[in-house]
């Protein structure tokens, strides 16, 4: 597949508006504003079957269609650039290296959804990305792609770059909106959904950086072109972030539905130091771990469900035979413990206890019955939390116990790891 989102990623100075325009940028914007009505664009995106790249895979055009047409309230668009799912580093590349592709997508999407103010919520730690985006936004204002009467069409749009404060949960859409309101990033109970009552209680569309970056290409090349890439139910290109024990970690743009095997062995160069593969997390640490017999599986929303996992953010974390799965689970759960917003009890208390028990096992203090205890706590979290983070937090525990129970048993019985860890930092 010819690269689409990453076509100009290695171009020096692609982040500058003149270079972006020279490479064909902002033509889609002009086309969208001058040749299409907002409804046309919503239909176009529906037809393309673009699905959200933030993790849940919700059809973007359908979401846009939920925005009430007759509401007297202001409408907002939010670009979710909080990129917090461990293992994921694709949005950072997109916004640092090709920020105008994202802005062009945002402007078109705002026009389609009737928004005149857009927030880009960028994670607080991304200072460099924020600097890049700030510069790009200023350039776009100067060229008349933002502000009043864009390209003489009468459409007005302002963008506010909003920096987070270092909280994973603020990637979840309702916490993100509370955060923009200057509050603690606690989740809200849904419904109401953001499209009816989002930020400042107004209709709000929220989309991920990669989702929005696809929009100019759909406008330029048409929905049929887009849905001819990838698989019928998960069309388009996808950026896979590959990390862990591979020879060539990095971001790879490939058609949706590329197999795990191709991603790991062809693109990421295979396993580091020619060791054997033990486990793969396909979509960031909130997705169930897979064993090497699942390498044939395609990386798209539906195929990943078929093998008992999820596409998530498409962040592939590769673990070789020297990895202790109990320790990996402990690392992952510690993250969720730290990041729980604390609003609901099962998530706040449950992640605390999972973390303590895993630490105990890892440090050689495991007791008989601990595995059952872990499973019971997971059961008390599952489906009982306000947002999907609770369900995400139990996934590392459940999926490692399911696939590597013997490592837990060995750890508890022998008070040490089943594998010999290797030194990786010299």
């Amino acid at each position, binding site marked *: 597949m010819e690269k689409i989102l990453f076509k100009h990623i290695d171009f020096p100075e692609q982040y500058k508006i003149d270079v972006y325009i020279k490479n064909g940028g902002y033509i889609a914007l002009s086309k969208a504003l001058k040749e299409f009505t907002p409804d046309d664009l919503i239909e176009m995106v529906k037809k393309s079957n673009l699905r959200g790249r933030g993790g849940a895979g919700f059809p973007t055009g359908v979401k846009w269609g939920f925005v009430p047409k007759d509401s007297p309230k*202001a409408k907002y668009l939010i670009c979710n650039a909080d*990129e*917090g*799912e*461990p*293992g*994921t*580093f694709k*949005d*950072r590349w997109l916004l640092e290296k090709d920020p105008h592709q994202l802005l062009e997508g945002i402007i078109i999407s705002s026009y389609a959804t009737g928004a005149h*103010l857009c927030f880009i919520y960028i*994670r*607080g*730690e*991304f*200072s*460099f990305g924020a600097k890049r985006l700030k510069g790009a936004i200023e350039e776009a204002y100067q060229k008349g792609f933002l502000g009043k009467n864009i390209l003489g069409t009468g459409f007005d749009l302002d963008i*506010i770059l*909003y*920096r*987070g*404060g*270092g*909280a*994973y949960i603020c990637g979840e859409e309702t916490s993100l909106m509370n*955060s*923009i*309101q*200057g*509050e*603690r*990033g606690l989740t809200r109970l849904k419904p109401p959904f953001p499209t009816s009552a989002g930020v*400042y209680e107004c209709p709000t569309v929220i989309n991920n950086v990669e989702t929005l970056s696809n929009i100019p290409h759909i406008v330029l090349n048409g929905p049929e072109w887009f849905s001819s890439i990838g698989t019928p139910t998960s069309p388009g290109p996808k950026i896979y*972030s*590959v*990390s*862990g*024990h591979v020879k060539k*970690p*990095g*971001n790879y743009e490939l058609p949706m539905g590329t197999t795990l095997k191709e991603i790991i062995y062809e693109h990421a160069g295979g396993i580091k130091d020619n060791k054997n593969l033990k486990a793969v*997390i396909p979509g960031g*640490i909130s997705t169930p771990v897979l064993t090497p017999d699942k390498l044939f599986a395609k990386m798209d929303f539906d195929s990943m469900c078929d093998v008992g996992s999820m596409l998530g953010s498409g*962040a592939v*974390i590769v*673990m070789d035979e020297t*990895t202790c799965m109990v320790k*990996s689970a402990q*690392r*992952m759960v510690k*993250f969720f413990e*730290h*990041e729980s*917003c604390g609003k609901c009890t099962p998530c706040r208390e449950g992640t605390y206890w999972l973390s303590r028990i895993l630490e105990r096992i890892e440090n050689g203090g495991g007791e008989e019955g601990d595995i059952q205890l872990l499973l019971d706590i997971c059961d008390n979290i599952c489906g009982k939390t306000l947002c999907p983070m609770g369900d995400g937090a139990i996934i590392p525990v459940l999926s490692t116990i399911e696939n590597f129970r013997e490592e837990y048993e060995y750890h508890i019985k022998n008070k040490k790891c089943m594998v010999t860890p290797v*030194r*990786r*930092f*010299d």
Partner: protein
Amino acid sequence: MISKKIKGRIVELKEKFPQRKSAILPALHLVLKEKNYVEKESLKEIAGLLELPPIEVFETASFYTMFPQKKVGKYHIQVCTNLSCSLLGAEELVKYLEEKLKIKVGETTPNGMFTLSTVECLGSCGTAPMMQINEDYYENLTKEKVDRILDDLLKKQI
């Protein structure tokens, strides 16, 4: 005390958003950039400048990990120890830094130069292990590289 220049910029934030409370996080970032931490006194000042009850600023600030309320070193070293980084030696990196700086995680060197912390994934997992010092990312770390980075920071002082 927040400097006069930053105070002016915080006041400007008051009218920037549909609701004034939205100015809290941007104000915290401005203070953080100037001082590396945001202590209670600054929080009160922010509340005064934005004409918000201090409790609202305390409440928001304390939720987010990026705004330490206690003084940190001139250079705040934050090592990612999430999964992808720990698969490639993040814990050994932390130990190495502890030995080198003669402090434990969470502590500051007696000369006030370095504070060492561990943090969660910083979205740089393809270049693990990595750390952030103040605003900058340092990636694909080795012992040699860490030595050089810290030496360079110290040299900048002289």
